[in-house]
């Protein structure tokens, strides 16, 4: 009886150890710095750890915020690498706004066998578009997708498979498109706040815009006198769908460094105030 129990225990320990080793996530996380379901790996242990990931997003040193999932295909060849996913040249985060005809680009590369176009696809809201010679440049590895999105929420994802059968996919990236009036969803903040223009410090007025729009930022002092106006063209800095950062150096339109005080930045488009923030200047 004791012998049977000992054998049973041994089997349990063996089984647990085997189960641990065959789990692909465990295999990958053993190369360090990965946590959760989003990661970049190859089918072989210890390869392809190109960044740090937490939760469901993957962030490279360049700030790219998207992850890659992979299936383990033990061919000895690394899975495709998807990186630099950008919307109109901008890195976006979950639920950011983009314009409806945004051009999406990403780098999709493979180290050995090359990308299999017919087995790779772009997924938009569960609709798949295959890689073709017209949207994928095999020489540069740049994938281009011309968006034509309707008003509302969408999801974008890239699926890539190489000729060895290795598979990789970016994390599904949710984003939004608005065709209505210009709006600033969320709050407007300036960073840093307070700031000191007396030593050359500048502050960035940050806000999300739901669509490309002509925007003006009016900065008033506490007695409601206009001291600075910053014009932002539609699609340019400050007027682009998505997250905008507009610099102010603390110099007024009277060509003077402003005094210690609180200033009200008001973001206006089409005669309508979209958002505001309070900027403190302390020298």
């Amino acid at each position, binding site marked *: 009886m004791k012998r049977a129990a000992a054998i049973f225990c041994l089997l349990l320990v063996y089984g647990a150890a085997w189960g641990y080793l065959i789990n692909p996530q465990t295999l990958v996380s053993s190369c360090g710095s990965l946590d959760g379901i989003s990661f970049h790996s190859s089918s072989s242990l210890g390869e392809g750890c190109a960044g740090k990931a937490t939760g469901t997003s993957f*962030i490279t040193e360049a*700030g790219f*915020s998207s992850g890659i999932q992979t299936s383990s295909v033990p061919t000895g060849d690394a899975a495709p690498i998807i990186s630099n996913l950008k919307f109109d040249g901008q890195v976006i*985060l979950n639920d950011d706004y983009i314009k409806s005809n945004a051009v999406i680009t990403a780098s999709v590369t493979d180290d050995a066998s090359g990308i299999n176009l017919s087995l790779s696809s772009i997924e938009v809201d569960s609709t798949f578009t295959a890689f073709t010679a017209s949207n994928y440049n095999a020489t540069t590895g740049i994938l281009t997708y011309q968006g034509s999105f309707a008003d509302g929420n969408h999801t974008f994802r890239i699926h890539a498979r190489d000729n060895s059968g290795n598979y990789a996919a970016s994390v599904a990236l949710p984003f939004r498109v608005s065709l209505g009036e210009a709006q600033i969803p969320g*709050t407007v*903040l*300036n*960073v*840093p*706040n*307070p700031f000191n223009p*007396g030593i050359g410090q500048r502050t*960035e007025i*940050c806000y999300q815009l739901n669509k490309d729009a002509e925007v003006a930022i*009016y900065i*008033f*002092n*506490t*007695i*409601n*006198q*206009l001291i600075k*106006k910053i014009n932002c063209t539609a699609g340019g800095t400050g007027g682009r769908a998505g*997250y905008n950062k507009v610099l102010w150096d603390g110099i*007024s*339109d*009277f*060509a*003077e460094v*402003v*005094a*210690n*005080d*609180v200033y*009200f930045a*008001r973001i*206006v488009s089409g005669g309508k*105030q979209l958002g*505001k*923030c*309070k900027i*403190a200047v*302390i*020298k």
Partner: protein
Amino acid sequence: MQNCSYKIIIFLLWGVIAGIAYGGALDPTRVGMGARAIALGRSQAAARDLFSTFVNPANASALEHYGFTSMYGTLAEDSPYTLIGAGFPIREGTLGTVGVSFLSLGVSGIQVTTFDATGRAQPLSSFDYNNRLLTVSYGKEINPRAALGASLKYFSRAFEGQASASGFDLDAGILYYPQKNLTLGLALQNLLPVDWANLAWAKTREDIPLNLKMGLVFTPREDWLLIGDYDSAGGIHAGAEWVVRKFLALRGGMENLPSGKSSTVTNYSLGVGLRYAGFNFDYAYYLDSLISANSSHFFSLSLELPFKTMETPAILPARAPSQEVAPLTQVQKKTVVITKKKAKTPPPKKKVAAKKNIKKKTALPELTRYSRR
């Protein structure tokens, strides 16, 4: 004495030419002192009421009664602007008039921010900002055609938990009456140079720039008042007041403000004044033509002591050069006649006082009934 007035004016103008500066720390009085002044396009260099005392201290000389006043408004949607003030004529103004005011402008919920790892702005905490001003003014007639005044101002500013500063400055002003229905006013605000006073922060010292205000009040008719100011730091202001009834006045104003080195913006204002006995209620709506959210409501409540009855109305014309007797209005003429008739019998003490009061009023110039506080 008239030469003396001219010399003072020339001296003040010289000071302006020598020292006017733009920019620098803000003088919060530029918001406008009192709902009446705001309704009149923020014109008050020569307005001769209690609120205007804190813009041009010479206006204090026009006060004949103890007065208490208050104002409330909101700037930039959520920044409260409050003002309380009082005026105390010494020996019925023969020794001049002292005015005291306290102004407070607050901004709350200013976010301290940073960028997170994804490069997005995130709030960390928040703090409040207070901008306060205590003013003590004195004004006195120096001759039948002119009055002088001066104000000592104590500024205090604090970014809660971040930085604070305080400092003094000085205003000087003059009123001049070239004719019975015209008053000219000139004020030099914040005369002290930065080395002497102004705002001392921990690391810097900020000048509150010298500002010139010149203004006039013209009363073409008893029930109409036209007012205008030139403000070297804040543009041109103008307004009109129509006294519809003894207790009711309607006002409108506009101002043209610099919004850059070569651009200006024009804003408008409207208002109404109600008065009963010694109480005055004034309302102003300031319409910002650039940003509608900057448009604000302002309210003032004032009290004059002793209380006046409607028979000895509070809406008599304002004070005049004491040796010039302005023509009486129909209402005044009737009142004087009645008083004279009653004076044949030995009047009780109260009526003597009333008569005395009326005599004083008859010496007032033809500003509208609403021009006094």
